[in-house]
């Protein structure tokens, strides 16, 4: 791996479109184009295009591929049929989260899609736990990724593929012709909206970009930067690794018990089984605030004068037009409706624990 900052295959297009480029996880990525709020609302109400080529893709193959993946992840991959995709996470023996990821069941192999900032760490972790008769390959440098997200995503996607999207369920993938070349795409996303993610080999990146943006013109599709990606996922209470989950937090605490299948064995199983049984000391909750000041990562959450937790992500919600946050609080204060407060610049701002997601009208939940 190199320490150089990597430009994705679409860098020149972002630059030409007025994208503000920043370094993120070793990549030059567009943080925004016309503005976070406008981009956010374009995805909620219409359709937007994201470059997610920084994400990592690993291939796991071999006769023991399934056994190996079952050992290193918490969700049950044996349930997956070819064509299906699963949200999953890898945990340490302590139960702390190594990364959250998507697992695609391919005809004979598996594809893992991991967070950009964790590519090297995940690869080392997987390799150090690799069983005999299982193989691990990092496909990230040769895989570009574009996401089309929003209630009108299917209308754009249907113009660049001949695949029957009407019969395609959420969290499934297909291999079909896209912009004239065969490649893999899935009905997945990180926005709460309907959408597609296209995995593009290097020789087809220009053709796919041109086809998608041309098809998008008829629908006023907007280019979306990483900043709006963050506000979109936050409104859905989708965890962001490094903010809301990390090696010090467990999937039980983070509200991800639904991807922890205790009837199989895996690294971290015993700690998580005990934590589920005894109930975690803290939980990740959704908070809505009064006023206009915005809670940010690390701000204290109070019950009276007692610190009962801290904010892990916060923003001004473009859809709800109010400040929102995710944060860990002690379990007795985690129930929805509980009144707490958040310290913002030495002022205590009233906040309420609310049921997830913040945004209730997404086209896919």
């Amino acid at each position, binding site marked *: 791996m190199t320490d150089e900052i990597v430009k994705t295959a679409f860098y020149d297009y972002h630059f030409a479109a007025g994208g503000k480029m920043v370094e993120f996880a070793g990549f030059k990525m567009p*943080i*925004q184009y016309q*503005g*976070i*709020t406008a981009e956010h609302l374009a995805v909620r109400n219409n359709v937007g295009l994201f470059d997610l080529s920084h994400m990592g893709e690993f291939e796991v193959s071999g006769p023991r591929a399934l056994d190996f993946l079952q050992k290193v992840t918490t969700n049950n991959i044996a349930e997956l049929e070819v064509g299906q995709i699963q949200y999953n996470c890898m945990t340490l023996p302590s139960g702390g989260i190594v990364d959250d990821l998507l697992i695609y069941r391919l005809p004979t192999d598996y594809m893992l899609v991991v967070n950009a900032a964790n590519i090297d760490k995940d690869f080392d972790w997987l390799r150090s736990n690799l069983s005999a008769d299982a193989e691990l390959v990092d496909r990230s440098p040769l895989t570009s990724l574009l996401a089309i997200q929003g209630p009108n995503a299917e209308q754009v996607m249907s113009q660049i593929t001949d695949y029957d999207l009407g019969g395609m369920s959420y969290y499934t993938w297909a291999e079909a012709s896209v912009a004239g070349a065969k490649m893999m795409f899935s009905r997945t996303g990180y926005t709460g909206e309907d959408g597609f993610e296209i995995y593009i080999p290097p020789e087809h990146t220009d053709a796919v970009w041109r086809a998608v943006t041309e098809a998008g013109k008829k629908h006023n599709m907007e280019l979306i930067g990483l*900043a709006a990606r963050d*506000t979109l996922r936050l409104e859905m209470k989708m965890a962001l690794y490094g903010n809301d989950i990390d090696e010090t937090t467990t999937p039980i605490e983070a509200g991800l018990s639904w991807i922890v299948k205790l009837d199989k064995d895996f690294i971290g199983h015993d700690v998580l089984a005990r934590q589920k049984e005894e109930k975690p000391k803290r939980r990740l909750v959704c908070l809505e605030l009064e006023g*206009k*000041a*915005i809670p*940010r990562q690390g701000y204290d959450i109070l019950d009276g004068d007692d610190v009962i937790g801290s904010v892990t992500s916060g*923003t*001004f919600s*473009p859809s709800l037009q109010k400040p929102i946050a995710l944060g860990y609080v002690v379990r007795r204060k985690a129930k929805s409706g509980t009144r707490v407060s958040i310290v913002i*610049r030495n002022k205590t701002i009233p906040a309420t624990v609310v049921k997830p997601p913040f945004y209730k009208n997404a086209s896919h939940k």
Partner: protein
Amino acid sequence: MNVPAELKYTDEHEWIGIEGNIATIGVTDHAAEELSDITFVELPAVGDEVTAGEAFGVIETVKAASDLFAPVSGKVVEVNTTLEDDPEIVTKEPYGAGWMIKIEMSDPSELEKLLDAEAYKKLIFG
């Protein structure tokens, strides 16, 4: 990038307009361009004292909070209340309707430490 010649500047990208003993404070075009999606501007109240070099308010954007630093010391005599309902005016008219506070200066000699337009241009354009 607009840098009006008649104003003074700080290296924190505030501008200062001077009329007699009253300093009007805002953020520069350059800062405003970096601050898209302003959701909230937190300002002091009329009558509050501010100290040169210390934070007097905050600009919240969707992405981050940025402190506003007082270029001069004195008493706040007027606050731009239109920013409460329309904080984005800071981005649209940073030197006009987007002004933030007016200060009655307690030590006008502090103005000597501020940058003139030429020095500020050098700062942002290198």
